[in-house]
């Protein structure tokens, strides 16, 4: 029965989560630490830190961690499916709805302006990300090379992710960059 509980609790978190990132931390603390007492405050912060330095969506990573702790590998999988379940249902409904109304003038007008707004929102996030991730000369060089390389050459993002990880190891091993 705990598997069902895991699924339902994480489905609830997925349905109540807006935006992700740090915004979901209070929600996780309330549901998992205070209500269910499945994990401690420190564990949540640990999972969160690791979620930020592993690939993938942080909310998904946290669900896998907590599920595994409660019920092993199967628990990890069930909790993860729980956290994505509301997204799949809600987005599918909206996508189906929008694809039926995409030709209406009012929808076209709204989305032409919404697109501009989305660009602004992403630009603001990128500026915030830049302040956090470009911290010294080597990281600035990696940033410039990756932007230029992506725009000018048709190189897969994967290449840049792998190459920049290697650069990070080399730069830090040589002792260059901010301590």
């Amino acid at each position: 029965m705990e598997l069902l509980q895991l699924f339902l609790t994480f489905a609830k978190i997925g349905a109540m989560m807006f935006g992700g990132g740090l915004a979901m931390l209070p929600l996780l603390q309330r549901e998992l630490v205070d209500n269910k007492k499945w994990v401690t405050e420190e564990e949540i912060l640990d999972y969160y830190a690791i979620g930020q330095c592993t690939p993938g969506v942080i909310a998904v990573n946290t669900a896998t961690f907590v599920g595994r702790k409660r019920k092993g590998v199967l628990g990890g999988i069930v909790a993860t499916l729980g956290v994505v379940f509301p997204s799949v249902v809600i987005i599918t409904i909206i996508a189906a709805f929008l694809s039926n109304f995409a030709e209406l003038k009012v929808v076209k007008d709204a989305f032409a302006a919404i697109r501009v707004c989305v660009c602004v929102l992403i630009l603001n996030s990128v500026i915030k990300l830049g302040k956090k991730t470009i911290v010294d000369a080597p990281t600035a060089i990696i940033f410039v090379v990756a932007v230029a390389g992506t725009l000018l050459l048709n190189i897969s993002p994967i290449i840049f992710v792998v190459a920049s990880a290697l650069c990070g190891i080399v730069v830090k091993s040589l002792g260059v960059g901010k301590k």
Partner: protein
Amino acid sequence: MMLLTLYWEFFKAGLFAVGGGLATLPFLRVMGQQYGWFTPAQLVDMVAVSESTPGPIGVNMATYVGYTYAGIPGAIIATLGLITPSVIIILIIATVLQKFRSNKYVDMGFYGMRPASTALITAALLGLMAVCLFGAGGIKDFASTAVIAPKPLILFAALMILTNVKKIKNLHPIVFIAVSAVVGILFNYSE
């Protein structure tokens, strides 16, 4: 076959998108270009919907792209593809949690990967901005016709200021999206 391609493309995005949230954006942009599953404008619409609905943004976008390409099975397959690598990685890391956290090479690698991830999102954003501000042909269209459509640029400038004003800037993105929708309808933005 179609679904297998979808699964594999999202598997790769899930494996290499580092840093959460918008980190999947560059991978989605490449998918659109390579397979023609959606246009750049559609991708931006997907970001708008993903930001305005509950759930992790990366997962929402995967579901949306999958649905657009292959209906409900596509929505499910794309989402599963995106989360498979992180589930596997986390299940492995969970068994060596402390060692992983204190491993200096992991730390060094992420020091290099974070600015690259920012760069990939920046490059994807520049491509999308060209389309959203200057029309379907992007910057080339703009240069060849030399006619500036001022409406998107005015909204862009206004929002850029509004979203950086204290008190207003911490409002949920859905507020700005809703206001923009009203502006778009009132001023016939699609013309």
